């Protein structure tokens, strides 16, 4: 049952809250009304059921009561005997007097089963002591003798406690909390018994029920004051709240009805407004994400309500008071979230701080640096969103000592560095720390349980000092602040050799209070710069301290651990022994080497050189070339090294061949076969091969069990030849085992081989060259490349040899001992370009080139000249003979008797003759005409040169010549010049027509055809005067020239053999022309006859051009009809 009741209230509570949230007051009222009825139903039902009797029993009891009443009604007329009790000790019974009986006539009431059970009275109610359980017969006697009888049972009695009296109702307006106090008056009741209380809160003025709560208490026989607190959602300032209380008592020995008491009188809580503040709650700190209601008390109409920037719907309370409800409020900024109500003439507001309760402090860690105080640090976790006075306060408390320390906040504090110092108590090692963080929204704590001796992180060691004990041992001392008396410290010493490895050594030291600590560090190297630093922890390791500052220290010197590396060379004259030694490396010198002592001892004598100061690593001693033992000692401030000894003489070895080697990079690799005789070590020395003896650049010693080594030196340069000598060491001394020449890297030669031509013939050249010096060879010579090619100096083609050029011939001479080369199968009198290059594995050297002309092949030349001459002579002789033999025939053929020109028959004869020779076909163009030519002056021979002189001014003097013509009446006989020559040279006359061909050939032989300038130099008139038709195409240039002078004369295929101009000029001026008059008569040929014509000079008035054209046309017209 009680469960069901709680459920009912739970529902109510929820429902009420929901209503308040969502609805305005009048709506809440409705909800209250709705709720009221079922509540009462519940109560009445519960009242009946409260006794421990089963429900069925109660029902039976009810029936019985009814039966009794029915019975009493039957037996008496008194009605409705009702008994109630306030405290279960006194029953207050009333009844109604029967009809007709006055209530004042009651005489006595008797309870039958009691002694002295009759009570005299005069009213219809009676207080009687509680009766024992069970039925009791009650008789009421009236004065008139009327008697009413009732059966009275405890079950019929109702227990109605007195109305509770609330002692005090107060309100905390800042928290909107109501405090109710009341007295349960438990002393008046049997105990223990349960009391159930119900408290209601009404919101004025509408008397809306805003809270109804019930709860149980136990009455213990004493008066107890009870408290009830309730926090209102709506700030109390904004509405008057009234509180009422009632109760009922549940006593299991009482079987009657249990009934609620009446509600106590309502007590009110109201707020007296002051002028300043009108909005509530003020400055409240709430959990982010929760809901909150703000209200505003105003006399004037509130226009709006907002939180931050967000305007909220107004919930009207009473009057002008309004509220806004905020759900799921977000975290405020530092200065809080503003809530502002605006009225027509003013602004009211409040600030709410929404944030979070402190997070559980995280990573709480407590440790000590010095056993004086314990430093606890932690991370606050999630930010609370609250600052200033609302920020989280932390307190560190230690439960064993009971001490606690508050955390002081500093402005610069960041979230990561929350630290708090707790002063250690002497003797306490175990600590149980609890760190509590509080803010207005709650608190959180975290705890740590530690043994402080296991949580030691010492301070950084200071005042680190180093003190020498020996050259290999120092002591380090440092100060460590703090009281470590009860524990052992574990410290680390870091030893750092300059620039190289670091070594860390651990040391466990007994702790002390505020003490310095001392540690010896051994196994150091003498005369070495060390850097020391120290850090400490405890044996129960927790954390290292920071490293101390570094301390640099140079250990003291010790004697050099061995003698220097020694070598010796005899000077070139063999009189002096030069002793070389190497400076000791720093780890063997054990100090600064000040000087060296050198001594040479033989059986007879000992020479020594002492105090050779350090930078000098060489000494020269004049010795007989015999066996000495040389010893070298290095000295530093601590003393002398053991001597290093070497024999002055080498063990001869004849079986030495020189080998070659090439290195890689700056190193060269040498290997050799193991030699069991070599007991001490091997020495490889090397020097630049171009240096003079004694040559020693450097040497290295290799242990006797090695068979190979890599020699590396910064002095090595590519392209330089070095000599390497491998010596083996025996007890008697060193013996040369191998001699090697080598290059670190081969380069191409920097010079070309110097070569000369030893011999030249018409078809071969013998070339000889010289060796390239070693310095310029820069590698092992691998061969020569020889190119040759036809070509002359300065001809671009032969400047460089293009690879792959077909003309180039290449010879690769790989036999480097070869120094000559004969090149055969060359052409005579030809220039050749020769090139010689040397090459190594490093590449080809530069080229040296030379031009050589082979000698002339004289026999061939002679033959080449003689044969054509002989042929020409033979042809000439044969031709002459033939001509001579056939001279009659020739005469008949070429020089027949000239017929009378007046006889036309001669024309036919001539025609047939002319057809016989094609060379004379030109004559056809001038068929014999029956013209009569009167020759006044004749020109038999016109020498070429004269023609040249005369022809050039032709164009300039046309007038002159034309004037002269009519006067002189010169008749020019036309005749080919070849005939003139025949006349001039009768010897050649025999050749006749062919002589023209020969002449031209000879001429062309001596005058190459492609000589246009020369030909142009010849006066065109010469050629124009006579042109064999065969040569016409060749002389086209001349023709052009002629054409420029005389445009009309454009006939290329055939040209009249006469030049009119020539004629014009020649005839009057030339004195020789008169001479030739007679000659014209004396000779003649059929051809000349054919061509003979009367040349009438053109008219003076005509221009030379028209003159020429006129002639030409006339000539044609004259000739054609005759054809």
């Amino acid at each position: 049952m009680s469960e069901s009741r709680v459920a009912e209230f739970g529902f109510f509570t929820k429902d009420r809250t929901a209503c308040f949230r969502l609805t305005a007051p009048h709506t809440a009222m409705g909800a209250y009304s709705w709720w009221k009825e079922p509540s009462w139903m519940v109560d009445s039902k519960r009242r009946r059921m409260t006794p421990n009797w089963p429900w069925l029993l109660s029902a039976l009891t009810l029936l019985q009561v009814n039966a009794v009443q029915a019975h009493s009604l039957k037996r008496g007329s008194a009605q409705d005997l009702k008994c109630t009790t306030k405290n279960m000790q006194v029953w207050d019974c009333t009844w109604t007097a029967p009809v007709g009986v006055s209530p004042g006539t009651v005489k006595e009431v008797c309870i039958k089963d009691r002694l002295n059970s009759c009570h005299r009275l005069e009213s219809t109610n009676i207080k009687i002591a509680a009766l024992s359980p069970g039925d009791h017969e009650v008789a009421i006697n009236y004065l008139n003798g009327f008697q009413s009888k009732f059966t009275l049972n405890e079950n019929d009695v109702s227990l109605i406690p007195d109305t509770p009296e609330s002692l005090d109702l107060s309100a905390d307006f800042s928290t909107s909390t109501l405090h109710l106090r009341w007295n349960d008056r438990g002393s008046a009741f049997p105990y223990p018994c349960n009391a159930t209380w119900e408290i209601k809160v009404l919101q004025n003025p509408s008397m809306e029920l805003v809270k109804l709560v019930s709860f149980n208490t136990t009455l213990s026989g004493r008066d107890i004051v009870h408290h009830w607190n309730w926090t209102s959602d709506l700030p109390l300032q904004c509405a008057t709240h009234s509180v009422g209380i009632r109760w009922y008592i549940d006593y299991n020995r009482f079987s009657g009805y249990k009934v609620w008491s009446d509600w106590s009188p309502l007590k009110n809580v109201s707020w007296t407004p002051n002028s300043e503040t009108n909005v509530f709650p003020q400055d409240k700190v709430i959990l982010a994400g929760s809901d909150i209601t703000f209200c505003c008390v105003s006399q004037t109409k509130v226009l709006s309500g907002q939180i931050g920037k967000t305007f909220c719907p107004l919930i009207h309370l009473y009057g002008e008071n309004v509220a806004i409800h905020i759900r799921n409020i977000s975290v405020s900024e530092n200065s809080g979230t503003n809530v502002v109500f605006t009225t027509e003439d003013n602004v009211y507001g409040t600030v709410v701080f929404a944030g979070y309760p402190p997070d559980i402090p995280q990573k709480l860690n407590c440790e000590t640096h010095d056993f004086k105080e314990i430093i606890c640090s932690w991370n606050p976790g999630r930010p609370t969103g609250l600052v200033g006075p609302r920020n989280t306060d932390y307190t560190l408390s230690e439960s064993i000592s009971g001490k606690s320390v508050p955390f002081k906040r500093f402005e610069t504090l960041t979230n990561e560095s929350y630290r708090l110092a707790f002063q250690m108590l002497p003797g306490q090692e175990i600590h149980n720390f609890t760190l509590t963080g509080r803010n207005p929204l709650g608190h959180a704590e975290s705890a740590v349980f530690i043994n402080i001796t296991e949580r030691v992180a010492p301070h950084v060691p200071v005042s680190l000092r180093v003190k020498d004990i020996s050259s290999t041992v120092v002591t380090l001392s440092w100060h460590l602040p703090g009281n470590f008396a009860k524990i052992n410290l574990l410290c680390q010493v870091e030893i750092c050799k300059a620039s190289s490895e670091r070594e860390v050594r651990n040391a466990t030291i007994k702790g002390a209070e505020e003490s310095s600590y001392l540690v010896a560090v051994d196994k150091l190297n003498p005369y070495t710069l060390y850097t020391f630093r120290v850090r400490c922890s405890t044996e129960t390791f927790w954390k290292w301290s920071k490293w101390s500052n570094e301390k640099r220290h140079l250990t003291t010197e010790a004697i050099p651990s061995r003698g220097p590396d020694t070598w010796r060379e005899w000077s070139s004259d063999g009189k002096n022994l030069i002793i070389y030694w190497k400076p000791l490396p720093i780890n063997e010198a054990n100090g600064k080497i000040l000087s060296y002592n050198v001594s040479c001892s033989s059986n007879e004598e000992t020479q020594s050189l002492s105090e050779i100061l350090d930078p000098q690593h060489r000494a020269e001693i004049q010795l007989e070339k015999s066996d000495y033992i040389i010893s070298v000692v290095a000295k530093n401030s601590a003393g002398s090294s053991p001597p290093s000894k070497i024999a002055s003489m080498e063990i001869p070895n004849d079986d030495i061949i020189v080998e070659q080697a090439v290195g890689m990079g700056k190193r060269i690799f040498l290997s050799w076969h193991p030699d069991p005789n070599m007991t001490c070590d091997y020495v490889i020395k090397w020097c630049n091969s171009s240096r003079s003896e004694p040559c020693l650049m450097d040497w290295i010693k290799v242990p006797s069990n090695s068979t190979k080594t890599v020699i590396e030196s910064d002095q090595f340069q590519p392209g330089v030849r070095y000599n390497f000598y491998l010596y083996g060491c025996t007890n008697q001394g060193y013996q040369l085992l191998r001699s090697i020449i080598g290059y670190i890297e081969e380069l191409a030669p920097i010079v070309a081989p110097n070569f000369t031509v030893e011999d030249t013939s018409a078809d071969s050249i013998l070339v000889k060259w010289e060796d390239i010096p070693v310095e310029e060879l820069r590698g092992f010579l691998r061969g020569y490349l020889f190119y040759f090619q036809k070509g002359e100096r300065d001809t671009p083609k032969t400047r460089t040899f293009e690879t792959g050029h077909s003309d180039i011939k290449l010879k690769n001479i790989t036999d480097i001992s070869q120094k000559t080369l004969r090149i055969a199968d060359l052409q005579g009198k030809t220039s050749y370009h020769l090139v010689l290059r040397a090459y190594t594995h490093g590449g080809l050297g530069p080229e040296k080139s030379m031009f050589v002309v082979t000698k002339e092949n004289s026999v061939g030349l002679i033959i080449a000249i003689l044969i054509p001459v002989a042929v020409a002579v033979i042809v000439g002789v044969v031709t002459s003979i033939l001509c001579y033999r056939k001279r009659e025939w020739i005469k008949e053929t070429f020089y027949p008797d000239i017929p009378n020109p007046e006889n036309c028959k001669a024309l036919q004869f001539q025609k047939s003759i002319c057809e016989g020779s094609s060379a004379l076909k030109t004559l056809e163009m001038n068929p014999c005409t029956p013209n009569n030519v009167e020759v006044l002056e004749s020109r038999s021979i016109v020498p070429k040169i004269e023609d040249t002189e005369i022809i050039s001014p032709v164009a300039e003097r046309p007038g002159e010549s034309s004037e002269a013509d009519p006067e002189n009446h010169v008749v020019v006989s036309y005749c080919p010049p070849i005939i003139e020559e025949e006349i001039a040279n009768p010897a050649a006359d025999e050749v006749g027509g062919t002589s023209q061909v020969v002449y031209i050939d000879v001429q062309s032989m001596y005058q190459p055809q492609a000589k246009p300038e020369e030909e142009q130099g010849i006066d065109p008139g010469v050629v124009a005067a006579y042109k064999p038709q065969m040569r016409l195409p060749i002389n086209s240039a001349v023709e052009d020239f002629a054409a420029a002078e005389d445009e009309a004369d454009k006939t290329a295929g055939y040209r009249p053999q006469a030049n009119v101009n020539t004629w014009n000029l020649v005839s009057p001026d030339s004195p020789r022309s008169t001479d030739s008059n007679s000659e014209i008569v004396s000779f003649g040929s059929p051809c000349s006859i054919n061509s003979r014509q009367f040349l009438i000079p053109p008219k003076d008035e005509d221009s030379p051009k028209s003159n020429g054209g006129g002639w030409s046309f006339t000539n044609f017209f004259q000739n054609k009809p005759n054809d």
Partner: protein
Amino acid sequence: MNDERAKDLMLTLFRPVPAPLCLLSLLPPLSLSAPISPSEPISQAYSLALYMQKNTSTLLQTYLRYQGSPFSDPGFAAPELQLSSLPPAAVSFKTWHAMDDAERLRRAQGAFLALTQHLQLVGDDQSDLNPDSPVLQAQIGAARLRAQGLLGNMAAIMTALGLPIPPEEDTLGLVPFGASAFERKCRGYIVTREYGHWTDRAVRDLALLKAKYPA
């Protein structure tokens, strides 16, 4: 502790402040010395007031920015908010014009005296509400320092003009303690706003004086 910090802030602020604030260090001898020509302190006060005028809106905007909405909303203004302990700067032109120099100086002096005290209060308020905002603290501190400087200059002027210097009094009394956060925010707003208004009015007052007492 807050006071010390505020002092520190002032000192740190003091260094970079250019010419007008440097005059402050010269003030004590000026105010103590016998009557001299009023033009020099007037000129100094005028320069300082002009300099202050440049920063008043920055102070107000900075202040509002830290108070959250609606204070930090653009264009926020609540002219209806007033503080009884702080005389409003707003005055009708007629009334202002009718005042004589002594009255103007007296009122301005009273106002800046109240402002210095209120700015101290606002600084304390903000160290609670915005403890992590040194910029705001610095600006409030600087404003207070300048107001004090102007007070000193005005005292020098009054001395030079032979006017009585009103005694310093506590304008705040007990009222402000226990104010709610909202009241403190509003109070700060009114103070920073009135600081600007009074500075404007002081510039006007001093300009008038400057015209009257040319150098």
